[in-house]
């Protein structure tokens, strides 16, 4: 049951009405039941999996709290358990394929025995949340954990299958659902939900078909320089609006229950530098990586720039691997790691030359470079083979050919969505002024909601999936 399905939208409003009608103590059980039903709507067979992860993590957290002398053992045991489950379901095939390939290189060819699995929905997201629960317990940020707190924290349906990746301390206190109904919060929730529907159906899906065609492996070898740049830009926009739409719908759904989820995007293509991009793109993953990987590692290697750069590369490669079991994702992560390292080097160099650091041209140059870097990195992320990546990047940077091979409509649609993305902060500001929360009960807001629903219905396309569901 996707957020952009009719069944979800029509079931949501009665479900929310019942939620508010229930007494406060009953709400958490009701939401837990709805969350399980939501996950089960994709198949009841794997509902046990997030519950099992919660069970394992809860047990480790309890032992960790009860045995301070062995807390490292219980922490790492719990993390190993979660990563083991994640690895089994997500990376087993990838690891075996690579092992078989490696053995074949040394003359030990063996038939591949890995059974291919459909990925359990949302496993990457709820695994990271479960790990953060363990770490927060160890660091004393979670006191007296209860199993059902953890289960509701992990399974809460708005963020269950594709984030935002939440922290225990920002979500668990809200899951008592003791807030009073607030019309303004409800109205802004509906804003986000309905705008997410438009972003998905109109902005993201309009580019999807073209991108699918342009990234066909053999086509990619024939694409010209302009084709490949346009395809990379189009994919960057498609994935942004796809994921941002999901996040908006998640945040909007939660707000209908008076719950605030963290933001996940803040106009990422307006980033002034590579670190700024990561402060705007998939922000909840960025902060998870920052808090649970980057800070602990760099607290250890603070003095050594080489170690810092190595940790940046390693962490970003892991972030790539988190997205999917494939070398393309790892290369994507490594490229982002490389941009971050280059920016750090520039920063430390410019630190001693304030004239350079604060120069307007340097700011403009980094904006342009960041955008070019991000677009370039989308190529390995989307392409299906190393050969294809080399062909596309080769054509983008070396073998220039400035003719075009796709109809003008593709370039026009990509240009239109690009212009929208460029004006997005401005438009967001105008919308906020036009639709202040206080106007929720007057005519203007329903007009906007109806317009969003109108566009959602007009561009309805059954079968258009969210890209991040595969992660």
């Amino acid at each position: 049951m996707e957020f952009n399905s009719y069944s979800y939208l029509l079931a949501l409003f009665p479900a929310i009405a019942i939620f508010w009608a229930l007494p406060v103590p009953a709400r958490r059980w009701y939401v837990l039941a709805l969350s399980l039903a939501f996950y089960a709507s994709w198949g009841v067979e794997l509902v046990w999996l997030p519950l099992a992860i919660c069970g394992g993590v809860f047990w480790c957290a309890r032992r960790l709290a009860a045995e301070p002398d062995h807390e490292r053992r219980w922490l790492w045991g719990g993390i190993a358990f979660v990563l083991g489950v994640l690895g089994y379901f997500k990376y087993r095939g990838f690891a075996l394929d690579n092992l078989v390939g490696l053995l074949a290189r040394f003359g030990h060819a063996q038939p591949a025995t890995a059974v291919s699995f459909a990925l359990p929905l949302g496993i990457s997201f709820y695994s990271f949340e479960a790990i953060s629960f363990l770490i927060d317990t160890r660091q004393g940020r979670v006191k007296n954990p209860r199993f059902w707190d953890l289960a509701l924290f992990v399974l809460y349906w708005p963020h269950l299958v594709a984030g935002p990746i939440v922290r225990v301390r920002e979500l668990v206190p809200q899951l008592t659902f003791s807030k009073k109904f607030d019309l303004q919060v409800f109205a802004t929730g509906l804003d986000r939900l309905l705008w997410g529907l438009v972003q998905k159906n109109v902005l993201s899906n309009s580019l999807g078909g073209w991108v699918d065609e342009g990234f066909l492996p053999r086509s990619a070898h024939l694409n010209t320089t302009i084709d490949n740049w346009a395809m990379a830009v189009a994919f960057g926009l498609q994935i942004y609006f796809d994921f941002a739409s999901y996040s908006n719908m998640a945040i909007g759904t939660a707000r209908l229950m008076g719950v605030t989820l963290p933001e996940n995007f803040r106009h990422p293509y307006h980033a002034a530098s590579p670190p700024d991009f990561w402060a705007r793109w998939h922000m909840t993953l960025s902060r998870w990586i920052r808090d649970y990987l980057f800070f602990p590692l760099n607290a250890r290697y603070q003095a050594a720039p080489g170690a810092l750069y190595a940790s940046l590369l390693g962490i970003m490669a892991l972030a790539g691997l988190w997205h999917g079991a494939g070398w393309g994702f790892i290369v994507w992560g490594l490229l982002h790691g490389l941009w971050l390292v280059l920016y750090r080097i520039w920063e430390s160099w410019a630190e001693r030359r304030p004239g350079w650091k604060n120069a307007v041209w340097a700011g403009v140059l980094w904006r342009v470079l960041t955008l070019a870097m991000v677009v370039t990195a989308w190529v390995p992320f989307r392409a299906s083979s190393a050969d294809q990546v080399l062909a596309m990047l080769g054509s983008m940077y070396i073998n220039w050919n400035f003719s075009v091979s796709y109809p003008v409509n593709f370039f026009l649609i990509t240009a239109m969505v690009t212009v929208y993305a460029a004006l997005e902060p401005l438009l967001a500001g105008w919308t906020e002024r036009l639709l202040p929360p206080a106007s929720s009960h007057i005519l203007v807001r329903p007009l906007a909601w109806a317009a969003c629903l109108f566009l959602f219905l007009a561009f309805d396309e059954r079968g258009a999936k969210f890209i991040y569901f595969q992660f």
Partner: protein
Amino acid sequence: MKKPLLGVAAALAQTVLVLGLLLWVRPLAAVNALIDRAFRVPGKASKLVPTRRNPDLHETSFGDNPLASFRHLAATWAKHPGAKRVVFAGNSQLQFVTLADDEPWTDQPEPTAVDWVAERYAASGRPVVCYRLSAGALSYTEALWSLLYLVNHPEVKPDALVLQANYQGFWNSGLRSGMLTLLDDPAFAAAAAHLAQPGSSLFAEAFEQAIQKHAAEQDRRTKGPGPAAAGTTLPAGHHLETRLREALDANFPLFRQRGEHKVDLLNTLYRGRIYLLGLRASSARSISGPRLDRSRASLEAIAAVCRANGVRMMIYDAPLNPRVSLFKTAADRSGYVDYLARFSRERQVPLFDLSAIVPERFWGRLLDGPEPLHLSRAGHKQLASVLFEKLGEQGF
């Protein structure tokens, strides 16, 4: 508590009301009319009129659900045992009529060239049945895809394929999602998988992508999110969504027509393209790159499939409006003409040059100028007449 809830109810009721109004009045169609008026488009322009829809004679889904159409065709052709079967495949030139300035409107849906050909056969008493396989911007990959279904089902296997060739057709590419429904048929799925051998051709990867997309959707529908569910029934969410869509489609005409608003919006954008950017449908262009190569590879494969299955293939260079040149350079034109001639010679496929058979006065106008593609009533008649004659020469 009661007051805010009343506020919510009122706001939601207003939303539903406004939404109903938007769906009912088709605001974007009105915007398009205003734009046309503002740009002083002549009233007679764009006389794109409704055409006949006959599932015995036409693939009426226009590529959205060919499986249902082909199953209907099997029942139709079963009533004509012994008749020779001719399939005409091409883009929307075969299915639309744009009236010329001197052609009056009628209340009846217009017949198209294939209707006229079928009528000529019926009148002549020759045992030939016809079928039109057309869709807007039909790509040669899609023509091949559809042909594969036909040749793998004796009940709908044609004796002849008359394929339209036109320059714009080489610009079209890929497979529309509705075409994937054919993969629900096991015989077709096996044939498509056979042609989709990796690395074999440019169209093969389009086939492969389509097969993977369909398989992923099937997997999602039938296996749920993980391996434990393999072989089990469809997940509840899928059932619920399907039933709900069916119910909404059946009971709410405004809901059923929701796709028309997208067409309106795309038409608005198209007007922006024409009036603001000057990029017309009839703008001359050069065609190169993967789309051209994939189209040519698909055309070659169509010839091979026809030959392997005993289907007589014929190709015709489609009528062109003399007032429109779609070729950007002389080299584009000669490249296209030479390719068709070479294809015909090497594959031993009869080629009919019908590019000049429809005179200027038989063409209508599109909103931005001369109609570059769709034939008028007289144009369709003229095309039918020549096709009937050429088919006769080929023994049909």
